[in-house]
């Protein structure tokens, strides 16, 4: 008996001396990478909104008033260049409506005045506007890069929260969408806008060259194509996600039932423990999902705000041009407005597709 007790004690000492202490793996590092994957301008906006990282308490305390304040500051900050340009264009229109009063009509000088007026308007508008359009292209590329970093981590959390089928579907759909944003939007749509804008420049050379119909047709085709594609993509992804969600919940119920039926004594407790673990992972998944949505939206918001201000400023200029009888200038401004609306449509659709698809996954 004494030998048995001593042997047992020695065995216990040996086992305890050579055991390894283990902890659950921390997931803080992946969140940090996702925060750093956002553009620096987006990080500044997130800091202004009081979001320093993927933190539940910071996200839940985000108020509409603070977001409204951020958007208001963006409007004020981005309005300087478009409004100044609009003032210059209106000055050009008024000046040339005065100069046109000297039009004798016999030398064809009306065409010369029209040419110089349109050229001045092009110089005044295209140079600052092209900076804004380049920023928009950069925002789409940054958003694509952010999605490439965000989607793998998010789908891992979705899978860990008991939705493996949904996570696989989400990963496949959104990664292909991110590639499409990078490829189609930045390499096809935006260069097309550049070509249309350069055609507008050529139309300034001769008032007989009418580009406005061409640009309006191209704008309609692109808008309809992008809208239908985005609607189909979101609709199909959400339908598949609903089916995958049903499959996931069936699998979970099956596992709980099997655990309760085949594991003696602790089967039901295991099922409850699984529910708690899945609930915790679900909270992390929702936190990361909301952060991803906010970060992506804030990537697009500054560019979208600037383009909206440009749109309204140039619309006023086009109205003034029509009012003073400068139809050629009005048509050039309308064509430029078409280019701005194409780029804005691309920005809004990219953001909407990501938000709707991710939001659907957060709901379940």
């Amino acid at each position, binding site marked *: 008996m004494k030998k048995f007790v001593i042997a047992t004690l020695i065995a216990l000492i040996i086992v305890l001396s050579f055991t390894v202490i283990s902890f659950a793996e921390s997931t803080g590092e992946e969140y940090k990478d996702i925060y750093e994957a956002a553009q620096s301008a987006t990080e500044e906006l997130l800091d202004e909104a009081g979001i320093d990282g993927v933190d539940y308490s910071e996200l839940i305390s985000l108020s509409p008033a603070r977001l409204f304040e951020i958007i208001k500051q963006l409007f004020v900050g981005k309005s300087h260049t478009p409004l*100044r*340009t609009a*003032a*210059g264009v209106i*000055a*050009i229109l*008024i*000046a*040339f409506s*005065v*100069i046109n009063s*000297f039009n*004798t009509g*016999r*030398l*064809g*000088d009306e065409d*010369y*005045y029209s*040419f*110089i*007026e349109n*050229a*001045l308007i*092009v*110089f*005044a508008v*295209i*140079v600052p506007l*092209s900076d804004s359009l380049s920023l928009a292209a950069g925002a789409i590329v940054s958003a694509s890069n952010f999605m490439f970093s965000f989607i793998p981590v998010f789908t891992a959390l979705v899978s860990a929260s008991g939705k493996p089928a949904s996570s696989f579907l989400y990963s496949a759909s959104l990664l292909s969408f991110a590639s499409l944003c990078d490829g189609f939007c930045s390499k096809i749509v935006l260069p097309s806008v*550049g*070509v249309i*804008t*350069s055609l507008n*420049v*050529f139309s*300034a*050379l001769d008032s007989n060259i009418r580009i406005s119909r061409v640009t309006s047709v191209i704008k309609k085709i692109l808008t309809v194509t992008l809208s239908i594609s985005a609607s189909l993509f979101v609709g199909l992804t959400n339908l598949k996600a609903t089916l995958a969600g049903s499959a996931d919940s069936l699998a979970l119920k099956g596992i709980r039932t099997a655990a309760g039926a085949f594991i003696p004594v602790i089967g039901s407790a295991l099922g409850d423990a699984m529910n708690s673990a899945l609930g915790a992972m679900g909270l992390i998944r929702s936190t990361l999902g909301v952060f991803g949505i906010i970060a992506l939206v804030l990537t697009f918001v500054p560019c979208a705000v600037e383009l909206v201000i440009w749109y309204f400023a140039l619309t006023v200029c086009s109205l003034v041009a029509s009012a003073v009888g400068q139809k050629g200038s009005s048509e050039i401004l309308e064509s430029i407005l078409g280019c701005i609306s194409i780029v804005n449509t691309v920005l809004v659709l990219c953001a909407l597709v990501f938000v709707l698809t991710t939001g659907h996954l957060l709901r379940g």
Partner: protein
Amino acid sequence: MIKPFVTALLGVMVIVIIKAVRPEIALSARLCTVGVLFLFAVSGTEAMTDYINSFFGVSGIDTSYFKLALKVTGICVITQITSDTCRDCAETALATTVELVGKFLILTMSLPIVKSLLEISIGLIK
């Protein structure tokens, strides 16, 4: 305000009288009247151009092209007056040549604008 109109009417009266007496100096009288009226017109536009220049300055747009537009206007007006004077003297061929010269000058002055527009277009396409 009515000085230019009074000047024009007086000029016409003098030209008609001189034409009846000494037709060879009627052209000189005509050119003097046109010159005086042209000076009246130019002095009136100075205030307008200063105002428009200040407006351009506030908006930050380069005023060199606006000055070019004013030069083109000046060339058009001078070409028109010269051409009409030639026609009044029954020199239609000379009038047409003057108009051709005016158009050529305007085209030459517009070349820098065409060059800038082409550079912008190529930049956008690239």
